[in-house]
């Protein structure tokens, strides 16, 4: 096989430094799934089918010299009837609240979403406001200024407008998420319990939470049978 035609897979840097859970919320149809797909797969799925079969997607980005894994969760359609579970918000490091700039009602519902975030999410969660579908120039109903104001008044950490269709600001959105989370994490220097490289557990009996999948794969061999 001739390796010179394919991108050469280089020596890896150290295994990812942090893994962050990012959840997307917002009304049905604002384009949450499209944003995620565009970012992780580079595609914009045609059709307006409701999200079926999408759980979470993982993408690794570089922040400085570190590899950061973003675990991006989708609502699985539970926002359609305001029925997102509390556990969806659990342990989220960042929440991206999305509205559709060409759909005023989706903006009007934002306070309700904020209420949910207030109730269920971690107090220190990173909050990002996104106005999606900026490609629909003429049909725009929510001016950018309004979005900025709302973001300021409600103490969002970041606001930007995106288009999953033409990729405007899609990468920037997630890169911002990754960068801010990484910097925050470095400040506290707290190793997230989802750090995959188990080798970092300095005590053999780690008291961190148990993730069933990982442990199920680890076979604790009974060693040194007492019979020689």
């Amino acid at each position, binding site marked *: *096989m001739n*390796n010179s035609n394919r991108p*050469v*897979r*280089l*020596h*890896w*840097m*150290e*295994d990812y430094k942090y893994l962050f859970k990012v959840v997307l919320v917002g009304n049905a149809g604002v384009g949450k799934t499209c944003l995620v797909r565009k970012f992780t*797969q580079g595609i914009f799925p045609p059709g307006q089918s409701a999200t*079926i*079969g*999408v*759980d979470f*997607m993982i993408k690794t980005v570089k922040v400085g*010299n570190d590899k950061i894994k973003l675990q991006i969760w989708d609502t699985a359609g539970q926002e359609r009837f305001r029925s997102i579970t509390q556990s969806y918000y659990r342990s989220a490091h960042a929440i991206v609240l999305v509205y559709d700039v060409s759909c005023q009602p989706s903006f009007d519902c934002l306070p309700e979403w904020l209420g949910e975030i207030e109730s269920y999410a971690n107090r220190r969660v990173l909050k990002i406001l996104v106005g999606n579908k900026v490609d629909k120039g003429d049909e725009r109903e929510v001016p950018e200024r309004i979005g900025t104001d709302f973001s300021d008044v409600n103490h969002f950490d970041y606001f930007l407008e995106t288009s999953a269709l033409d990729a405007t600001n899609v990468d920037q959105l997630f890169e911002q998420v990754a960068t801010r989370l990484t910097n925050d994490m470095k400040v506290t220097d707290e190793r997230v319990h989802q750090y995959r*490289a*188990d*080798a*970092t*557990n*300095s005590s*053999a*009996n780690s008291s961190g939470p148990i993730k069933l999948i990982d442990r199920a794969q680890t*076979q*604790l*061999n009974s*060693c*040194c*049978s*007492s*019979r*020689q």
Partner: protein
Amino acid sequence: MHFVKKVPTSEQEKAAKRKEHEKRAQQFLRVRDRIVAKRDKGEYDEEILSLTQQILEKNADIYTFWNIRRTAIEQRIEANRNYLLELDVLDEEKAKSAQKVENLLAGELFLSYECIKSNPKSYSAWYQRAWVLQRQANPDYVKELALCEKALQMDCRNFHCWDHRRTVSRMAKRTEEQELEFSNRLIEENFSNYSAWHYRSIALTKIHCDEKSVKLDDSILAAELQKVKNAFYMDADDQSAWTYTRWLLENGSGKEFLRPESCTPIQLISASFHGTNTTLVFTRAVTVPYILTLVDTDDETSWRGFSSTSPSPTSARVWQYVSDTPLQIANPLETPEKSENFAWMSLTDTPYVNVAKLKMIFDVEEPKEPAFIQELLEDCRQLIELEPKNKWPLYMRSLVLMEYRPIRSHSEIVDNLKLLAESLDTKRVELYKSLISRQKLNFSIREQFARLLSHESDELVVRYSELTSLEGVEFLAGLVGSADFSGN
């Protein structure tokens, strides 16, 4: 490609596997050839790193490829070193270059980690880690030790991992106390961990023993016995617990036979003149040059050594200097040095006999019995009752009795050893027979000891005692002129 969760069918799985396998085999050969070609040309570039990585991920034991990687990385380290010395380069650039090297090394650790995950006993993968740690600017020893601990949890006898751990401990300058705590952790999790007990014994020795004291003191022995007791009670067949107990006893023992000969310090047992020769007896085999430091002659030639293993040994416990004149020996209580201020002892009239040592060798007196020994004897007795067919507690009890109660418990000792030889541990029948022999020999010698010491007679009589060897008799060489060993 969809994110809908799918369920595999077994047909699909099988077919896919087969195809995959063939593909991989072909790929391997092509890649390997390319690597070798590049190496021969000296092309230690990104490509060779990438290719070797691909292969090592699946086959961690290809030492050559690790070697290639080391060469490649060394080249880059060297290049970086030179770069850093250049004058007209911005600090920023230098920092970047140094960082690149660090990334390279970190990547190497990650690669080796992946290899170890699937092949925890790959020597090359472990070795690479140590190699990297030596070159990193800020090696993370904590993480490395945690990795070792985890690997040992999976397989407590992985000696590659133990070796690596020892290396890292040294690099990290960990104290022996920390290592002791580590061994403790492993043992508490699973006391059947032979390697952990062994590691513990090494740590204890390093902490508590030096040139002055080669023994562990009583309080430590007592504490350790308390701990290991849990293990042999919970599982009386667990070899590691009994082995550790034995090591503890050896460490606390003054007696020669429980301790391997190398631990015994050299002492002179007796020095006597017998008209035509001077006989010297030592606790350990010594050489002529050593003896010459103790005696008032420089003559190397007139020495005769006596050893059971060879007719003219260079090293022996018993030596004779053939001469009509008695030798003078250095006063054994002082450090043997030939100087003028130094006192010579004459053997013309009275021989020198280290009675205390002889008594110890032949169990003429029972040593003081610390409380923890009493406890150990009782524990063994209890276990013997609970498990009459188990050789371990019986053997341990017998060893301890031989050490501390050789006179009082002589018959029990012999009975126990016979039971072991005949039914409980027939594989080691020779060992037990020799122990019985020694025990009986000592018994017999004790009876004649006073007589021999006072030179009433110089005949040693040991008849019908099931002796299998005369090991030990040579210590009496200075006192015994003739012996009767009939019926053995």
